[in-house]
């Protein structure tokens, strides 16, 4: 556990100093800060919806970029710079290395979400005169969405190059956001043949459903009615954790056999 935490700490320390991630965070913070200025364009009650939705959109986009950019290099860079040799020649198991990298990435995401969340809460409080109850659960959901994406990226990074990983992880994230609604659409359409439907069903089962985490966004899901928001949040977070555990186990199995 000591080794895992030490690796997580080093990963966090290095990631929060990466210029590209700092730039993404600063741009996101700036946009979140000025997001209330877009409210008047919607007018009336729509202003609140626009401000919340716009802020969530920026936070989700920044979280996605940060997760992909940060995690694609986490393991390959250590191999390229040979830092990994000094680590694995110590009494460190390979699974501890993968876990340490993941926890470091999640810690970084947590820190970035905390920064964006605080600025978002302050900006909306100033613009709306009160705290909006959707913000904290929404942030929590997006944080777990990004953590799940980080696990996907780390999984791919154990066997593909960073460039391929960008496309693979980006593709999985995109499909994971679209597949469930696409599946609903084709299931409602009687003309769709099984040749089309079955692959979509299979992909929907295999790929993580990233759309589940977007429910707090009132523009993306205007008609979404959640009868028990707490239960829904807990279920979705549990879904993310189960998926993350599965991806990490697979990553460790692959990384254990990998030659560097």
């Amino acid at each position, binding site marked *: 556990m000591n*080794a895992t935490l030490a690796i997580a700490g080093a990963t966090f320390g290095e990631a929060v100093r990466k210029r590209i991630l700092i730039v993404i965070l600063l741009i996101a913070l700036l946009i979140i800060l000025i997001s209330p200025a877009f409210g008047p364009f919607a007018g009336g009650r729509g202003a609140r919806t626009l401000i919340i939705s716009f802020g969530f959109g920026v936070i989700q986009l920044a979280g996605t970029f940060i997760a992909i950019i940060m995690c694609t290099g986490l393991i390959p860079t250590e191999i390229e*710079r040979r830092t990994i040799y*000094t680590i694995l020649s110590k*009494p460190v198991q390979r699974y501890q290395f993968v876990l340490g990298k993941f926890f470091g990435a999640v810690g970084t995401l947590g820190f970035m979400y905390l920064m964006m969340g605080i600025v978002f809460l302050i900006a909306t409080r100033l613009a709306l005169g009160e705290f909006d109850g959707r913000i904290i659960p929404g942030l929590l959901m997006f944080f777990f969405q990004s953590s799940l994406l980080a696990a996907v990226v780390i999984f791919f990074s154990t066997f593909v190059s960073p460039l391929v990983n960008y496309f693979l992880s980006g593709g999985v994230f995109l499909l994971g956001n679209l597949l469930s609604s696409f599946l609903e659409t084709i299931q409602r359409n009687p003309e769709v043949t099984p040749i089309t439907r079955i692959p979509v069903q299979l992909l929907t089962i295999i790929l993580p459903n990233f759309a589940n985490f977007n429910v707090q966004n009132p523009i993306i899901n205007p008609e979404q009615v959640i009868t028990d928001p707490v239960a829904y949040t807990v279920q979705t977070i549990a879904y993310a954790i189960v998926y993350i555990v599965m991806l990490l186990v697979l990553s460790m199995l692959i990384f254990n056999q990998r030659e*560097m």
Partner: protein
Amino acid sequence: MSDLAIKTVNLTKRYSGLWSKHPVEAVKNLNLEVYRGEIFGFLGPNGAGKTTTIKILLGIIYPTEGEAYVLGQPAGDPKNHYKISYLPENPYFYDYMTGREILTFYAKLFGITEPERSKRVDELLDRVGLSRAADQPLRTYSKGMLQRIGLAQCLINDPELLILDEPTAGLDPIAHIDIRDLILELRNQGKTLFISSHQLSDVERVCDRVAILNKGMLVRLGKIEELLAGGYVEIIADKVTNNVLEPIRQLGGKASLHDGRLIVEQPDDGSVDRVIDIVRAAGGHIVSVKPYRRTLEDLFVETIQGGKSV
């Protein structure tokens, strides 16, 4: 307890590409024994298989065939890593950390807890001469300082076996001497050092035994003094006549004469005095007598160009 720090038995590593029909053999049937307490030089040209062998010993890659043992245990067993340490060639460390922080990081990997951790880190910083730079970020360190911090991280666990890959490469003369002295000091403490290096003069000076690898195969192995036996003495004399050549050649020397100047390469086997007597008896005048010791560089070049395996 085995008296061997490292043992490989028919160790072979083949790399085969996804589409390639012909695998590359990086290491072929390597049989090596490194004794505890010795400094062992592991030499070879680039691509000879040195780093591949080291990676197998550390469990970073796996052998295709054969076996490798480190301190009596199968190579790569992380429990065994409490007793070994490794310095890679041109090491990179997290450069946002300070010297103190990076050593603390490596100490944590060994589960060394406070207050022992801080004590050991301070001792090591002092030992490698970095106490004053301890709180500077590593990105401000020179190459020599980074190499010292690399050696310090190697010592954090007080290892029995140190595997060092090019420990003195690219260092200025002072740093070079410091690192070499530290290596000798470690040997005096009873540690085993397995050093891969192209700095042949360093290896010749500090190592007890060496192995030379070429194209994945072991081509030389032995004690330095045995491998370097066979030096010669160069004798130069003037005013020498033709009649000395034959008696000198009968003593085993290579002699040549031009315009009265004689140059003899005489084996360093006690016959040198007799050659000088022959020259003087013939009225010759000795200009110089200079011993030439065979160097590791000579042996290395001869071995690699000869290319036979042991």
